[in-house]
C-alpha cells in the first residue's frame, strides 16, 4: 500500500515535467500548427539558464593566498564571489544558494526572447510547409542548439543544487501514521510538483479568462474564421510561442536540481514528450497534461520490483508500449480531435 502511494507520488513528479513540456508543445502545435522537435532543446536551455545564473552569481574576484598552495604547488588562487563582496559573506552565500529559484525569473525574459527569435527567424517560414519539413528543420535546430550549449558548457553534467532550505525529504509515513521512513519524498520534488501545478493552472487561466487567451483559443479552434474577424492572429501566435518557450524554460530551470543539467537532456526528453503529446491527443491541452501524469505514474509503477519480476524489462519500454496501445485503441489519443495531423 505504502509502495503504491510512493510510486504515485513519484509518478506525479515525473509527470509534472512531462506535462509541462507537453503543454508547451501542444500550445505551439495548437496555435501555430507547427510540430516543434526543438522543444526539448528549449527545456534544456531553461536548465542552462539556471546554470548560467549560478555562474554569474559565482563570478569571483581572484586573490593570491601565499599561505596555501594549489595542486601544482604554486601559491593558491582564492576565489571570492563578487556577490559576497557586495552583500557580505552571509547574504552573498544565501543569494548564491537561492540561484535556482531566482533563475526562474531570469529565465522568463530569456526564454521569451529565445522563443521570439526562433519563431520569427525560422519557424514562421515553415507555417505552410508540410509537417515533415517542420519536424526536420526543428530537429536540425535541436542538434544545433545542443551542440552550441556543449561548446560553451562541455558535455559533463553541471551540478545546480536547490537551496539548502529544501534539502532532505518529507516523511509522509510519520504524517499518515505508517512507520517512519516508509514513505519519504524530497522537498524539492514536492516544490517541483506544486510549481508545475501553478504553471499549468496559470496557462489554463490565461487562456480561459483573458481576451488574449480567448482569441488564441478561438484561433486554435478555427484559424480562418478568427482571421476573417480582422484580428491579427499571427502576432498573438508569436507571443504564444514565446509563452510556450517560457513554460518549457521554467520547467527546465526547476528541473536543474533534480538532475544536473547536461547538453543532451533535451533530446532525452524530446521523444518522451512527443509520445506524451500524441497519447494525450495532438492539439489538446488537457490531454497533454493528463497524458503527462498518466505516463509518469505508469513509468513509476513499472519500475517496481514486483512488476519487473513479472515482466522483465517492462520499465524499459512501458511508455512506448502504452503509447502503441493507446494509439491503436484510440486513434486520436486520449482527448484528441478528429482530423488533426492525419495528413
Amino acid at each position: 500500500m505504502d509502495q503504491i502511494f510512493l510510486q504515485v507520488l513519484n509518478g506525479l513528479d515525473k509527470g509534472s515535467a512531462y506535462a509541462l513540456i507537453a503543454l508547451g508543445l501542444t500550445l505551439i502545435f495548437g496555435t501555430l500548427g507547427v510540430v516543434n522537435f526543438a522543444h526539448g532543446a528549449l527545456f534544456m536551455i531553461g536548465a542552462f539558464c539556471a546554470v548560467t545564473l549560478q555562474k554569474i552569481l559565482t563570478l569571483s574576484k581572484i586573490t593570491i593566498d601565499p599561505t596555501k598552495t594549489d595542486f601544482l604547488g604554486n601559491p593558491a588562487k582564492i576565489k571570492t564571489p563578487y556577490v559576497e563582496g557586495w552583500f557580505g559573506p552571509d547574504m552573498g552565500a544565501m543569494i548564491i544558494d537561492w540561484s535556482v529559484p531566482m533563475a526562474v525569473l531570469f529565465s522568463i525574459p530569456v526564454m521569451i526572447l529565445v522563443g521570439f527569435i526562433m519563431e520569427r527567424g525560422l519557424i514562421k517560414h515553415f507555417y505552410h510547409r508540410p509537417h515533415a519539413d517542420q519536424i526536420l528543420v526543428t530537429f536540425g535546430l535541436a542538434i544545433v542548439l545542443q551542440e552550441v550549449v556543449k561548446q560553451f558548457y562541455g558535455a559533463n553534467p553541471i551540478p545546480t543544487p536547490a537551496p539548502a532550505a529544501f534539502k532532505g525529504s518529507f516523511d509522509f509515513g510519520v504524517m499518515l501514521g505508517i512507520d517512519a521512513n516508509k514513505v519519504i519524498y524530497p522537498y524539492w520534488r514536492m516544490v517541483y510538483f506544486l510549481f508545475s501545478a501553478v504553471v499549468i493552472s496559470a496557462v489554463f487561466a490565461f487562456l480561459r479568462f483573458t481576451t488574449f487567451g480567448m482569441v488564441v483559443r478561438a484561433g486554435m479552434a478555427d484559424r480562418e474564421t478568427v482571421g476573417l474577424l480582422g484580428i491579427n492572429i499571427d502576432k498573438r501566435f508569436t507571443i504564444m510561442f514565446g509563452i510556450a518557450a517560457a513554460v518549457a524554460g521554467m520547467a527546465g530551470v526547476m528541473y536543474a536540481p533534480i538532475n544536473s543539467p547536461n547538453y543532451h537532456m533535451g533530446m532525452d526528453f524530446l521523444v518522451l514528450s512527443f509520445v506524451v503529446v500524441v497519447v494525450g491527443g495532438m492539439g489538446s491541452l488537457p490531454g497533454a497534461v493528463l497524458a503527462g501524469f498518466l505516463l509518469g505514474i505508469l513509468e513509476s509503477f513499472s519500475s517496481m520490483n514486483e512488476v519487473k519480476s513479472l515482466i522483465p524489462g517492462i520499465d524499459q519500454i512501458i511508455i512506448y508500449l502504452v503509447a502503441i496501445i493507446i494509439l491503436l485503441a484510440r486513434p486520436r489519443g486520449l482527448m484528441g480531435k478528429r482530423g488533426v495531423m492525419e495528413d
Partner: protein
Amino acid sequence: MTKSNLTRRGLIKTGAAASAGLAMPTLFTGNVWAAAHSGYRNAPTNGTVTLGFNVPQSGPYADEGADELRAYELAVEHLNGGGDGGMMNTFSSSALTGAGILGNKVQFVTGDTQTKSDAARASAKSMIEKDGAVMITGGSSSGVAIAVQGMCQEAGVIFMAGLTHSNDTTGKDKKANGFRHFFNAYMSAAALAPVLKKLYGTDRTAYHLTADYSWGWTQEESIAAATEAMGWKTAEKVRTPLATTDFSSYIAPVLNSGADVLVLNHYGGNMVNSLTNAVQFGLRDKQVNGKNFEIVVPLYSRLMAKGAGANVKGIFGSTNWHWSLTDAGSKAFVKSFGTKYGFPPSQAAHTVYCQTLLYADACQRAGTHNPCAVAEALEGFKFDGLGNGPTEYRAEDHQCFKDVLVVKGKENPENEFDLLEIVEVTPRAQVEYAPDHPMFAGGELGKCNPGA
C-alpha cells in the same frame, strides 16, 4: 583503362600494366598494408609512426574524451622529446629517450567513438585503413573498448584500452592484441570490501541499483560476491534502464526494503543522476536497523564527481588513480599536465598517458612495431614509476595488476579539483585473482595477429 575492365581480375591486370611505367605495384591480400615489406600492418614509413587516438568527442562522455586527448597530446610531446618529459623521467624502464619511437617521430590521428560500438569501430577502421595507424588506443566505456579491441585483433594492430572497467575486457572478451592498464570491477570490489567492512561492519544489507547492461552486471556481480563473502546480505538487485534520467522511482523503495547500504553500479550520467537523486531523498540522513544509511559508488571518476557536486561528500568508492597521489610519477605527471592545461588530469587522462608510454616502451624494447613482438614485450612486463606503484602486465590476460585506491568524496574541498580524498591504497595482492577465475572465464586470448 576501360571501365569494362573493372573486375577483380581486370584490376590486377591493369594495375600491373600501369605499374610498369609509373610506380612499383603493390599487391596486398589478407588485410595487409605495408605488410609486404615489414611482415605487419601499417609499419612506419618516412620516419614517422602514427598512433590512433579513438576517444568520445560527442555524446555524454565527451569531456572525458577531451581529457584523454589532452593526455595523449602530452604523451606524444614527451615521446618526441618535447616538454618536461613527464613520467618518462620516473618510469622504471629507460628504453625511451625522447627521440620518438625507434627513431621514428610520433604522429597521431584522432577519431570520435561517440560512445557507440559501431561508430568507434568505424573510426578505428578509418585510422587503420586511411591514416595507417599502427596502434589504436582510447575509449571511455567497456562496450566500446571490447568492440574496438575485437576489431584491432582482426585488423592486426595493437589496442591499448583506455577507460574500461568491465571484467569482460580482459575476461571473456580478452584478445591477444589488446591490453588494459585500467583496473576492473573485480578489483574495485576486492579493494572496497575490506574498507567497507572496517567502516560499516559485517552486519549490513545492501541494495544494488545497476545499470542494465553488461558492465553494470559484472560490477554488480563482483561487488555482491565480495560483500557477501564478508557477511553482508543482499536485499535486492534492481536493474535500471540505461536511458533513465530520473531515478526517483528506483530509489524510493530502497528504505522500505530493510537495506542499510545502497550500492550504485552506475557510471557517467547515470551515476551523477542516481547519486544526486539518492542524496535528494535524504537517504544518508536516515537510520535503518539502528545504523546510518550509507551509499557506495564502486567506480568513481573525478569528472563525474564534479557533475554530482556536493552530493559525493563522504561517499566511498574506488578509482584507478588520483592526482593527489604523492609518488614521484604522479607528481611529475600532474606537474607537466597541470602546467600545460591549467588543471589536474583525470584518471582517464592518466591511464591513457600510461598506455601510450607503455606501448612506446614495448616497441623500443622489442625493436619493432610488429604487434606480436610488442605484445611479447608487454606480456609479463613489470614496471614502476607510472603513478600506481609496482605494476605488472599479466601475460595470461593482458591485465595490469597494481594497487587500487579507495577514495571518498571530500567533505571540505580546498579547490574545485579537490573532490576526492584517498582513504586507502589496497595492495595488489588483495585484488589479484587467478586468470581462470569464474568471473573472467570463457574467453581466450587467441594468437596475436600482426595483420600479415
